C-alpha cells in the first residue's frame, strides 16, 4: 500500500520559506539598524559642519563675542530634505547672543558641554529635533568669554534617507528571494527529471517484459534502479520456473496416461474375462501410480506457494537412499543393469526436505541412468558427508555425455545430446527443479575413463538449531569441492 506523505517540492519550498524567513528577519533587522545608523552619521556630519561654520563667524570685540550668522550654515543645516532649522549662540552663562527659535536647551546640557561637542535628541512642540553643540573659545590678548553654538534640525531628512536605504536593501533582498525561488524550482524540476524518466519507462513496459532497465540515472537513484532490476530478474526467474513446472507436470502425467490407454485398449480387444481382469488390475495399479504422481505434482505446485518458514521434519538420508535403491533394484526395468549401493556413512545424515520430493528426484536420476546407459552397466549410489553438506551421487559407467552438453543437462528436452532413447528429456529438469525447491544443488560430471556422475548436494539439518535455516544456504556447495 502506497501512502503519499507530503510532497518533495512542498517540503523544499517550506524549508526555503523558513530559511528565508529567519535569515530575512535577521537581515532586515540588520539593514534597518545600519540604514538608521548611516543616515544618522550622514546628517550628524551636516550638523557638525553647520556648527563649525557658525563658530567660525564668531568674533570677539574687546572680549565680547559677536556673531553674524552665515547664510550658508543654515543651508547646510536644512540639508536637501528642507528640514526645519534651529540655531542658538549662547555665552557660558546662558545668555543668548543670537537664536532663531525659542527652543529651551536644558541647562544641564549647557553645563555639560565641553570642547568635544555634544549631540542630543530633543522633543519640542514641532516634533523631534536633533541637536549638536560646540563650545568655542578663542585665544586672545584679553580674557575672552567662550560661547556655545547650538544647531539643530528636524528629522525628516534622516528618516527619508534611512527609509530609502532600507527600501533599497529590502528590494535587493526580495529580488534575491524571488530569484532563489525560481532557481530552486528549476533545480527541482531538473533533479526530479530522472525519476520522471524512470517512471515513464516503467509505465511503458509490457506486462511480460522483465528485461533489465536501460536507463541513465544519477548516483542517488542508482540503488533504486538496481533494486528494480533485481525485482525484475526475480520475477523473470519465477515466471520461467512456473512455465517449466507446468511443462514438467504435463509430461509426467502424459506418460502414465498413455500406458493406461494402451492397457485398456489391449483389454478391450480381448473377449476373455480373465484378460479383462488382468487388464483392469494393471489399469488400477497404473491409475494408482498416476494419481500418486498427480498428488505429488500437486504437492510440488503447492510447495511453490508454501511459506518458506514452514518447518519440516528432519529425515535420515541414508535410510531413504537404501529404500529407494532397494525399491528400484526390485523393479523389472533394472533387471538388465547392475544397480548397487556404494559407501554409506555410519552415522545418520539428517536433512530437512520433503521425503517424497527427494524420492522423486532420486528415482528420476536412477531412471535416467537406466534409460541412457547400455545394458549391463553399473549404477552405484554413494552417500557421504562433506562439511555441512550431504553428498549424494549416482555414478554409472556408461558412455557419459559430451562436455559441451554438460552445462545444459538440467534443462528440459536436452537428453544429453542423444536422440536414440525413449526418454522424454524432462527427467533431469524435474530433478533440477525439485532440488532447487529443496535448497539442494545438482552437479553433472563425466568420469574417467567413462561414465557420468550426478551429484546431489543437500544441506544438512542443524541439529540443535532452527531447521529452516538450512534453506538459506550461503555457500555454493559446488564450489566447495
Amino acid at each position, binding site marked *: 500500500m502506497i501512502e503519499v506523505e507530503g510532497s518533495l517540492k512542498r517540503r523544499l519550498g517550506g524549508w526555503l520559506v523558513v530559511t528565508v524567513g529567519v535569515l530575512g528577519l535577521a537581515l532586515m533587522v540588520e539593514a534597518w539598524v545600519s540604514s538608521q545608523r548611516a543616515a544618522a552619521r550622514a546628517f550628524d556630519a551636516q550638523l557638525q559642519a553647520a556648527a563649525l561654520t557658525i563658530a567660525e563667524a564668531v568674533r570677539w570685540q574687546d572680549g565680547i563675542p559677536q556673531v553674524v*550668522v*552665515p547664510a550658508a*550654515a*543654515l543651508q547646510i543645516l536644512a540639508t536637501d530634505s528642507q528640514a526645519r532649522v534651529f540655531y542658538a549662540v549662547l555665552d557660558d552663562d546662558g545668555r543668548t547672543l543670537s537664536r532663531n*527659535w525659542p527652543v529651551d536647551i536644558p541647562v544641564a546640557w549647557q553645563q555639560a558641554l565641553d570642547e568635544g561637542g555634544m549631540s542630543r535628541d530633543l522633543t519640542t512642540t*514641532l516634533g523631534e529635533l536633533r541637536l549638536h553643540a560646540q563650545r568655542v573659545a578663542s585665544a586672545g590678548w584679553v580674557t575672552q568669554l567662550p560661547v556655545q553654538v547650538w544647531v539643530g534640525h528636524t528629522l525628516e531628512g534622516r528618516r527619508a534617507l534611512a527609509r530609502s536605504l532600507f527600501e533599497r536593501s529590502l528590494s535587493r533582498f526580495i529580488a534575491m528571494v524571488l530569484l532563489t525561488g525560481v532557481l530552486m524550482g528549476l533545480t527541482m524540476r531538473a533533479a526530479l527529471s530522472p525519476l520522471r524518466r524512470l517512471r515513464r519507462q516503467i509505465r511503458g513496459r509490457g506486462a511480460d517484459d522483465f528485461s533489465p532497465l536501460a536507463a541513465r540515472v544519477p548516483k542517488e537513484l542508482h540503488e533504486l534502479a538496481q533494486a528494480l532490476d533485481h525485482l525484475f530478474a526475480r520475477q523473470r526467474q519465477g515466471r520461467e520456473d512456473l512455465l517449466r513446472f507446468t511443462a514438467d507436470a504435463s509430461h509426467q502425467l502424459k506418460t502414465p496416461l498413455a500406458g493406461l490407454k494402451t492397457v485398456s485398449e489391449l483389454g478391450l480387444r480381448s473377449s476373455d474375462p480373465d484378460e479383462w481382469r488382468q487388464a483392469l488390475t494393471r489399469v488400477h495399479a497404473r491409475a494408482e501410480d498416476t494419481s500418486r504422481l498427480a498428488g505429488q505434482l500437486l504437492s510440488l505446485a503447492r510447495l511453490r506457494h508454501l511459506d518458506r518458514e514452514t518447518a519440516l521434519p528432519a529425515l535420515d538420508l541414508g535410510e531413504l537412499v537404501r529404500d529407494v535403491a532397494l525399491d528400484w533394484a526390485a523393479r523389472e526395468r533394472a533387471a538388465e543393469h547392475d544397480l548397487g549401493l556404494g559407501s554409506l556413512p555410519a552415522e545418520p545424515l539428517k536433512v530437512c526436505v520433503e521425503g517424497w520430493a527427494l524420492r522423486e528426484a532420486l528415482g528420476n536420476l536412477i531412471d535416467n541412468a537406466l534409460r541412457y546407459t547400455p545394458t549391463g552397466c553399473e549404477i552405484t549410489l554413494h552417500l557421504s558427508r562433506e562439511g555441512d553438506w550431504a553428498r549424494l551421487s549416482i555414478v554409472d559407467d556408461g558412455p557419459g555425455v559430451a562436455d559441451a552438453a554438460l552445462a545444459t543437462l538440467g534443462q528440459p528436452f536436452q537428453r544429453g545430446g542423444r536422440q536414440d532413447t525413449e526418454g522424454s528429456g524432462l527427467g533431469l529438469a524435474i530433478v533440477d527443479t525439485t532440488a532447487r525447491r529443496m535448497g539442494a544443488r545438482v552437479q553433472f560430471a563425466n568420469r574417467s575413463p567413462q561414465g557420468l556422475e550426478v551429484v546431489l548436494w543437500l544441506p544438512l539439518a542443524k541439529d540443535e538449531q532452527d531447521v529452516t535455516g538450512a534453506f538459506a544456504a550461503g555457500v555454493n556447495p559446488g564450489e566447495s569441492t
Partner: protein
Amino acid sequence: MSLPPGQRLRSCGRLPARCATQVTRRQPLVVSPCLPLLLLMLLLLGGCHSGDSRTPTDEDPLVISAALDLDVVAPLLDAFRQAYPQIPLRFEDRTTREVDDSVVGHLAGGGVEGEGTSRAPDVVISSAMPWQMARVNEGLARRLNGPEIERWPEWARWRDEVFAFTFEPVVMAYRLDLSRHMLPPQTHGDLHALLATQARWLTGKVTTYSPLSSGVGYTLAQQDARYSSRFWELVGAMGRVDTRLETTTRAMLEGLSQGRYWLGYNLLGSYAMVYAQEHPEVIVQVPRDYSLVLMRMAFVHRDAPHVEAAETFVRFLLSQRGQRVLAGQTPLFSVLPGVTGPYTAARLRTQVGERLYPILPNATLLAFVDPARREAFTDHWRARFQGEQALDEAVERGSGALAPE
C-alpha cells in the same frame, strides 16, 4: 447651524482648526460599520463641525493677509471668485511688516476673542521672503498636498508648506527727463558712474527701497551685497546724492511720474512694468549685468480658521488655471512650466537672458532675519550711506557685504 457666528464661536470656543480635522477624520473610522449611528453623530456634531472648520460666510470670510497690491492681483481674485463663488474672501492689502505681524498677532494673547486682530489669517502672502521663511520654519504653516502641489517646481517650494508663486525681476526705472541730460544706466556699473559724475543733476532725484524700514528693501540690499562686492560703493554713491528712501515701489513710481524723482533703483518689476505702460514718462530698465528676482511666497496659516477654503485658494493659486490668469492678466510672472502668457518666467528668461538671479525659498533666507545679523547689516549700510568708511572688513564679510571667499 442656524446660530449666528458669534454664538457659534463661543460654543466651540477658539479651538484651533486641528480639533475640527481630528473630529472629522476619526469619526468615520469609529462608527462607519453602523450607518445610522454615523448619521446621528453627524447630526449631533454637525453644528460644531461646520462652526469649527468654518465654511467662510459673508460675515466671516476667507481672509488673505497679503503684501500684494489689490489692483495687480484683482484678476486672480476674480477668477477665484468665479471658480468658487461659494467662498467669500477678504483680501487685506498690507505692508510686509503688517503681514508678518498678522501671522503671529493671535499668538500674543492680546485682543478680544472673535475680534479681527486676534484671529489668524487663512492665507499669508508676502514679498518679504526671509520673514515668510522664518514663520514657516517656526511651524506656522500647514503642509499641503495634492496634484497641484506635486506639479509645482521643487525649487519654488519649501517643505510643501510655503510656495514661491511669482517671479518678479528687480529693475531700475528712470524718467524720460533723465535721458535728455545723460545716457540712461543699463547696469549697476552705469548707475554707479552716473551717481558719481552727474551728482549735479541727480542730487535729491534718486530713490530706492529703504533697507531700514522695508522688508523687501532689506532683502534686496542683502542679496545685492551677497552678489556684488561693489554694492557698498553704490550705497556710498547713493548716500552722496542724497537718495530718498521709500518703502513701496508704488511710492517710487509715483515720485518718478510726478517728476520728484528722475531715477529709481531696486523697484519691483511687476509693478513698474504695468505702471510704465500707462505712464510713458517712466522707463523701466532690467539691469543688464545682473537682475535679482523676487518671489512672493504664500502659505496657509497653521491656525487658519477656514482650513479647507484656505487650501482651496492656495491650490487654485498654484493650479494651471490660476497660473494662466497670473501669466495673462497680472505682471507677476508665472514659474509653472507649461503655462503660456505674456508674463511667464520662461518668457522673461528668453527676453532678458541668463542674468536673472532669483531669490530662492531656502534656509539661507533665515540668516537675513537674524537680529544680530540684521543689526550689523543695517548699521553698516547706514554708515556707508552716510559716508562713513571706518568699518572693519569682517563685518562686511560676515554680514554678506563681501562675496564669499
